[in-house]
């Protein structure tokens, strides 16, 4: 493969992967701590895109600034959703939980359709529309490599935010409590941790993280009521590959999936690329359900046994 093409595909894949990573961290967090598979996750991504769009549209401020300003709003949406839909089902079956989030997703999509119509809305970054052209690098036989500023900014901020969140989980007291609750709810409860509060906080943070991702990609993607669904399946793939509940896993596998997607779409065709990542997904689930970075022992005890 010629180096120019290889480099370009790699750059595109990594930039794409950064967005996947940030969007998936929220999902993996909610799963890891609360053991809830949130099928409405993509809808929060969509809602955040809309909110950012409207702020930019009415107040003419920078979309990245708007994304940050909206964090408290999205946090609040997370809290409200938690009380209305998630908390009452914590003791229900896995099925009831999954389908509550399915119902929630239907409601959100159609509320948005009702109020904001099905129009496709997009913004463009006035100051950064043209791609940066790097190269040539004769030593590496690379003629040129193009980097889109909007994608680069989204990628940079996504990685920064992911790292910041990772450090928060590792170092802060609250982060430790969240991790403790994730590892063993009963033990955490016995240690005097208010798990209800932690659940509420975790859910809201998860929504904020996906909301940030939504805001950051607004200069790259247009928003419509059903855009969340386009992203959510990929988020699941990323989360499973990284190991459900593993933040580092989601970051690394987001990048991997981004790169794999771009390369496979070049080599085996755009229409078949999804088959590849869904098959990878099934294979990983079967061979190593704990993913690349999951807690292997615990998961295996709980979820795997061989067929006779």
């Amino acid at each position, binding site marked *: 493969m010629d180096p120019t093409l290889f480099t370009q595909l790699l750059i595109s894949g990594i930039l*794409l992967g950064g967005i996947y990573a940030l969007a998936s961290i929220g999902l993996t967090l909610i799963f890891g701590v609360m053991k809830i598979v949130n099928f409405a996750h993509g809808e929060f991504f969509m809602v955040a895109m809309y909110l950012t769009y409207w702020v930019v549209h009415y107040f003419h401020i920078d979309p990245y600034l708007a994304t940050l300003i909206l964090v408290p709003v999205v946090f609040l949406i997370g809290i409200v959703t938690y009380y209305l839909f998630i908390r009452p089902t914590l003791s229900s079956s896995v099925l009831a939980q999954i389908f509550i989030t399915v119902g929630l997703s239907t409601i959100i999509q159609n509320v948005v359709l009702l109020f904001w119509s099905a*129009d496709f809305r997009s913004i*463009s970054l006035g100051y950064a529309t043209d*791609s940066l052209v790097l190269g040539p690098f004769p030593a590496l036989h690379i003629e040129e490599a193009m980097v889109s500023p909007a994608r680069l900014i989204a990628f940079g901020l996504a990685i920064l935010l992911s790292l910041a969140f990772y450090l928060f989980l590792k170092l802060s007291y609250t982060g430790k409590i969240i991790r403790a609750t994730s590892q063993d709810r009963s033990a955490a409860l016995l240690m005097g941790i208010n798990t209800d509060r932690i659940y509420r906080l975790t859910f809201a943070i998860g929504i904020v993280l996906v909301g940030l991702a939504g805001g950051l990609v607004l200069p790259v993607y247009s928003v419509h009521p059903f*855009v969340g669904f386009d992203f959510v399946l990929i988020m699941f793939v990323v989360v499973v590959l990284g190991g459900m509940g593993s933040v580092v896993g989601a970051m690394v596998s987001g990048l991997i999936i981004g790169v794999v997607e771009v390369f496979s779409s*070049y080599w085996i065709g*755009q229409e078949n690329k*999804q088959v590849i990542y869904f098959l990878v997904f099934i294979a990983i689930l079967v061979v190593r359900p704990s993913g690349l970075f999951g807690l292997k022992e615990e998961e295996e005890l709980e979820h795997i046994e061989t067929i006779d």
Partner: protein
Amino acid sequence: MKKRVISACVMASVVCGLLLTGNQVYGQENMWRVGTILPLTGPLAKNGIKNFDGVKIATDMVNDQGGVLGKKVALVSADAPDPQAAASEANRLITNEKITAIIGTQASTLSMAATVVAEKAKVFYLENEGISGGITSRGFKYTFRTTFDSDMMAYQMIDFAADVIAPKIKKDAGSLRLAIVQEDGGFGTSTGKGLTDRAKARNLNVVATEVYSAKTVDLSGLVMKLKRAKPDIVLAAQYINDSILFHRQAKELKLNTIVIGTTAGQGNPDFVQAFGKDADGVMAGGIPSEISVQRLTAQQKKDADEFVRRYKASHNGEYPNPTSFVGFAGAWILYKFILPKAGSLDPDKLREAALGLDIPRGKGVLNWGVKFAKPGEKNAGQNVYASAGLNQWQNGELKLIFPKEVASAEFKLPR
């Protein structure tokens, strides 16, 4: 207990709400009751709603002009987000609402399911936007299509590329490098087939054919492949969301080429909203973007202006979406040509009236004429005087540039 009371209250209020807000229209006894089936929710909602807007404006206009044969028209509408719902709703309109003439369906797959129900019940069905060849190739007796089909549109896109663009870029048709990009839904598949067939028939050089899912969030692999294939012209059968993504990534990766899209994608106002000045030069085949006036009578011209005025009034000054144009055109053909001649909504009379029409090009609506292919002919029920047009974004406006006789602007070679 408290919980149960709450849920009972909510349920009760839902039922009450249902009864109150039902969309029954009373006092329709002395009106022409026409059904519509369009996707108003779900992923197809965008174009479905815009199409419905066109149908509604046509209905309002005709009613304000005194109705048809002195009776006003009432729409009985239905929402069809997927093919099964389309069939079900067709059933409901026919059985419960006693509808005998239906306008629909925006998307081909919905149309395929809904027309079967209508055909079985012998109900007149006017397809106003679904362009798949399959709709008229089944030999149905009661299904008529007012708009062009995918082949008519695809042929014109190819012909325009070979006959008009090629000389401008100083190439002969034989050395022209074409690339076809199609989304894998019903629209992209049937249009892509038409493009490929026509290119083959004209011995044109297609250097790449790329298929992708409109739900994808990344097209960089596809763009890089096109870049390697070095096409002069990309023919793209896309929807709006993926056309925006495609052009964004083409720009990011500096794929410089002429693009002929369709009115389902590149011709949509949302496209220019996304790109502003950068949209200039991009072309969109399909629905003529303007009711160009050269060949119209004074009354027709007035109607056309009235449509645009009303649309703008209800859409914050936005120029009509191409989809609204065909929605309008379909309803207008029914109200102005078929219904007056039939004098009744009896499906057989409507059918006979439709088959008897022969209105020359330019004298119908949207510069189209009205003449439906007879039973036994190829594509029975197809309006053979409908024609696709080619539009181009010029200074933020979608101008009709082809065919020549109706064009309102000259083709400009994109930079």
